[in-house]
């Protein structure tokens, strides 16, 4: 694959038009006001029938899973039974992965935070429930998340646990009769302030040392007693993605909220495989985000280089400006090729390895940040002003090197694979 198919281009053009007409006019409110992205995301879903496609795909898969469970060949909560972001309609993974990637790329040309809000709700929260939940749990929570009817948050990071997410995790679940009591604080939680459904990741406290405790996950609903969702945190960028803190003080839950209804759902090989699949999906999504940002930087920079006149000629005639444009184009081509590689491997039914996905994310995130900073430089004083879009892209791009695993974590995953 070296270019988008005709079908892909039609989707790209339609989404691009939607972004220009429906999202871009709200850029200021999303960036500098208090506008949450959810109504626009729901409109996107409704407009393109993404909600109906997601619901139909979910219903099909769940029916198949139930039929399979009825035959006794697969138990509830079988890993990977339903992938949240994939809606393959029986037409090959590459085609449907493209349908997922294109809205990400096009939205990132205007509002990358919207992609983060959407990705965390659909790609992480719903995916976690679909990967490990029972049929009843999927039906109860995942379907509404996949259609964007409800908004999800995936709560793993804590004030003292970031890259070392599980090693330093302090949040706990304690058995209390047939129920559990949940306690802990979570931070940097995308959609945290407004989420209807929260997957809360913690450790089962059986009186044993924290390092030996099992990881368990619970599904919570907004408004439960003892659960507090903070207001949005102020951030450097990604303003259209509300990020917040969660505080749990003796939140009482039944076993029906324990993901997979098993305390061992996330232990052993199955647990690691589920995490790996999540990381691969998340990191490939970041590469698509990077592509959208680089494409936008290039588009704006080329236009500006032609229009901006200094020393009596357009600045595009100066070689130092040409160098910046050329570097952006190289980055665009490389990241686009990485995205195409992901689509190709999906189409071939060969999932990317974690190391590959990490390499893809590492390169794409750095390329986007560099391209955005170069774009700011090319725009000079104007580029530093909020009025010019490159200022926002530069602030937004930086997070790609931090979330979904920092650059440093990607390096360790790549190196571990090479040295194994």
């Amino acid at each position, binding site marked *: 694959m070296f270019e988008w198919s005709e079908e892909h281009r039609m989707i790209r053009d339609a989404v691009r038009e939607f972004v220009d007409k429906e999202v871009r006019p709200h850029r200021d409110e999303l960036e500098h006001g208090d506008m949450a992205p959810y109504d626009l995301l729901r409109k996107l879903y409704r407009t393109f*029938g993404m909600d109906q496609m997601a619901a139909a795909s979910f219903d099909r898969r769940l029916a198949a899973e139930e039929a399979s469970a009825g035959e006794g060949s697969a138990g509830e909560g079988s890993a990977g039974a339903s992938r949240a972001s994939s809606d393959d309609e029986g037409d090959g993974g590459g085609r449907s992965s493209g349908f997922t990637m294109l809205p990400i790329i096009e939205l990132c040309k205007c509002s990358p935070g919207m992609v983060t809000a959407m990705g965390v709700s659909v790609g992480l929260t719903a995916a976690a429930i679909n990967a490990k939940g029972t049929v009843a749990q999927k039906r109860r929570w995942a379907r509404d998340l996949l259609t964007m009817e409800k908004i999800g948050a995936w709560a793993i990071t804590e004030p003292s646990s970031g890259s070392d997410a599980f090693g330093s995790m302090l949040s706990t679940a304690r058995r209390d009769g047939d129920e559990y009591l949940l306690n802990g604080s979570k931070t940097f939680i995308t959609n945290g302030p407004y989420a209807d459904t929260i997957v809360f990741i913690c450790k089962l406290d059986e009186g044993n040392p924290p390092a030996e405790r099992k990881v368990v996950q619970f599904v919570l609903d907004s408004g439960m007693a003892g659960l507090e969702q903070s207001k949005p945190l102020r951030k450097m960028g990604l303003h259209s993605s509300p990020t917040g803190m969660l505080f749990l003080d003796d939140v009482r839950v039944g076993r029906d909220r324990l993901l997979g209804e098993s305390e061992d759902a996330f232990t052993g090989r199955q647990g690691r495989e589920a995490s790996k699949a999540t990381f691969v999906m998340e990191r490939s999504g970041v590469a698509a985000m990077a592509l959208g940002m680089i494409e936008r930087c290039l588009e704006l920079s080329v236009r500006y280089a032609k229009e901006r006149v200094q020393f009596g000629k357009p600045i595009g005639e100066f070689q130092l400006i040409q160098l910046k444009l050329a570097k952006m184009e190289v980055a665009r081509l490389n990241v686009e090729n990485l995205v195409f590689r992901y689509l190709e491997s999906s189409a071939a039914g060969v999932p990317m390895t974690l190391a590959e996905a990490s390499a893809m994310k590492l390169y794409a995130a750095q390329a986007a940040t560099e391209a955005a900073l170069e774009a700011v430089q090319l725009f000079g004083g104007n580029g530093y002003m909020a009025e010019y879009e490159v200022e926002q892209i530069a602030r937004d791009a930086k997070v790609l090197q931090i979330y979904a695993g920092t650059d440093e974590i990607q390096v360790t995953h790549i190196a571990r694979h090479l040295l194994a």
Partner: protein
Amino acid sequence: MHVVVCVKQIPDPAVPGALDAYNTLQREGKLILDESDSYGVEMALQLVDAAGGGEVTLISMAPNGEVSGLRTALAMGAAKAILVSDPALAGSDALGTAKVLAKCVERAGGVDLVLAATESSDGYTGTVPAQMAELLSMPALTFAKHVEVADGKIKIQRQTEAGYDVVEASLPVVVTVTAGVVEPRYPSFKGIMAAKNKPVDAVTAADLGLADQVGWAGARQEITGVTQAPARQAGEKIEDDGTGFEKIVGYLEKLKVI
């Protein structure tokens, strides 16, 4: 209810156009759906929905078997298309185009309503729909800003400078719709996937029995020259010395705006 929509596929207006040796627009590259036709497509889909059934057929005349613009309209929900693509069509004038489209309407069969834009975004003659109606012996209702169909009749609000006239006719009929008559939908992802497999009936001028009546051979119009539009003149600046408003009021009165 069977609605036919005339759909023109034009060079992307975002890309600077070029003329060929005969002063006609070069149409060699990818063509897109003329935005002014997207209103007709949307109107047709809504009318069929309101009628409780039926289908929308697209008709188009384009070089090189181009279907990109048609696919967009099919993705919006049209059921099928007739595409006339033939080197012999090059140089067709408005009447030649009307003959081709009229034959397409006949080919579609059992048509209740033919919709078209008031004019295309590249040619701007605005005469094809009325010529087509004449060839089909159908009434032509033009500049519709609102359309209702009931009991075998159509009632439109015809846009005028002062407001609108209400015009009625019996079906079948040719109607031109103004931009903004409805809000064209975005094609859904499912619609885009389905569009690929929707039937496009590709025909030539000869298939329509028009071999000698179209193209340069049949054209009664000739483009004798093309000149650049005059540059926009600078506006009049009014320095406000305290009576500036009087000059502005006088100017607006002269324009009969107030």
